[in-house]
């Protein structure tokens, strides 16, 4: 795959998208926004991909928007509509599990990117920083939508406004990240977690992802109907048959994601 600002690598059914501008702490440029979308499309279409990892090369996860791209007359709304919203939508609409492996500081839009993922793993010493208010802007790219849903309103307000960096320990404590991993065990820890996800019933996961998020914005009757439809689809899947058979035969199921 020919990318300038990211690396794309597929190993053991896990596609890793590595933001690759280490000298700029992986700050996002227009090309990077587009390449992330493209890589997500490739991973979505490729049947052999059953888990997607977003991570950064070098010391940082992502330092947010490259401020070099922002000019005096920049229309910030257009900027978001054109660059960030398609990226956030691509993450939300990808039916496969997306894991943000936060290897270092995730700031501003870099934190938004991590929040948009389905799971977050964090290296000890890494930090989440909502830098937006420090420069008189509001957290964007879905940040204010997703954060209160992840950690509750009060914590989300603190993180968004006070701008105090969230350490890996605190992030773990408030449920923002699934696993806190020691620096020397980082790669191994990420691999274990993502390979476990890659062996789950991927089709059922897609239904969980789609319905859980939309369920937060629906009334219960509408949601129950969608849940019934999701279960109908899952009930017809190979993985369901395999799950039942493995249970009866008292063995571990081998899910193929279909």
């Amino acid at each position, binding site marked *: 795959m020919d990318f300038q600002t990211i690396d794309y690598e597929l190993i053991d059914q896990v596609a890793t998208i590595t933001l690759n501008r280490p000298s700029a702490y992986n700050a996002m440029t227009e090309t990077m926004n587009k390449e992330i979308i493209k890589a997500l499309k490739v991973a979505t279409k490729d049947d052999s991909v059953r888990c997607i990892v977003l991570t950064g090369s070098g010391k940082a996860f992502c330092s947010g928007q490259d401020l070099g791209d922002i000019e005096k007359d920049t229309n910030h709304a257009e900027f978001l509509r054109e660059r960030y919203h398609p990226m956030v939508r691509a993450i939300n609409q990808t039916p496969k599990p997306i894991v943000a492996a936060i290897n270092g500081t995730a700031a501003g839009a870099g934190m938004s990117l991590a929040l948009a993922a389905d799971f977050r793993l964090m290296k000890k010493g890494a930090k989440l920083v909502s830098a937006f208010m420090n420069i008189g802007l509001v957290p964007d790219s879905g940040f204010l939508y997703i954060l209160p849903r992840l950690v509750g309103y009060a914590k989300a307000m603190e993180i968004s406004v006070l701008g105090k960096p969230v350490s890996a320990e605190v992030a773990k404590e408030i449920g923002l990240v699934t696993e806190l991993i020691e620096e020397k065990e980082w790669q191994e820890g990420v691999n274990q977690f993502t390979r476990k996800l890659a062996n789950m019933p991927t089709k059922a996961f897609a239904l969980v992802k789609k319905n859980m998020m939309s369920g937060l914005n629906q009334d219960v009757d509408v949601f129950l109907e*969608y849940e019934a*439809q*999701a279960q*109908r*689809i899952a009930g*017809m899947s190979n993985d369901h048959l395999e799950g039942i058979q493995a249970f009866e035969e008292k063995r571990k199921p081998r899910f193929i994601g279909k």
Partner: protein
Amino acid sequence: MSKTFIHVLVENEVGIIQLNRPKALNALNRKMVDEIVEQMEAFDADNSIRVIVLKGNERAFAAGADIEEMMEETPLTLEVLDPFAVWDRLSLIKKPTIAAVNGFALGGGFELALHCDLIIAARDAKFGFPEVKLGVLPGAGGTQFLTKAMGRRKALEWIWLGESMTAQEAEKYGVVNRVVEAELVEEEAMRLATRLAKQAPISLRLIKESVYKAEDLPIVDGKMLERKNFYLAFASEDQTEGMRAFKEKRPPTFKGE
């Protein structure tokens, strides 16, 4: 049964037409429209069919009209050929018609869906009239049907911008009846069709006529037409059966007679 651009099948009492030009995302050409219209009429005349379902494939219901077919046309060749006139026959179908929409329903494809009585849409279906981007406008009833469905302001906005609307938006404005998961669109359409197939066919046809007239007639005339249709229903055995079954507290069996 197959023709050049459609597959035709019958399940129980439901007549199914599947658009079959997958390589062109089911873009409609004139022969294809002729085949659809002829098959709709054949089902309408067939006593063993009670409901008609129109569907595409996973990727597209129908992604518009065949542009190449139109590029060399002039006002006069169009006037003489009058390629949209055949669509009027779709509005004369008396049995319930259901469009099952997966993927794209754009331009002529959207118009085809709008010619059906009910529309079931996949959650990720896309509806739209991109004609404006080609310097033209919908020609097979799109401006009329969409305006009746969603009102003038919203219809103008959609047709002017030529952007596609999601199934959720289409549902919000009453353009589609139900939105379900993509994998279940056909199942849902068949579920609805099977329910309708059990209703009294004469009632369904008189209801369809009355409801459509409600969009065109002044209320006094519409009420008159409804009243005449109500009286007409009493000529059917199904009316006798329906009322007797109600009194005897058992489910009715309707024969369409």
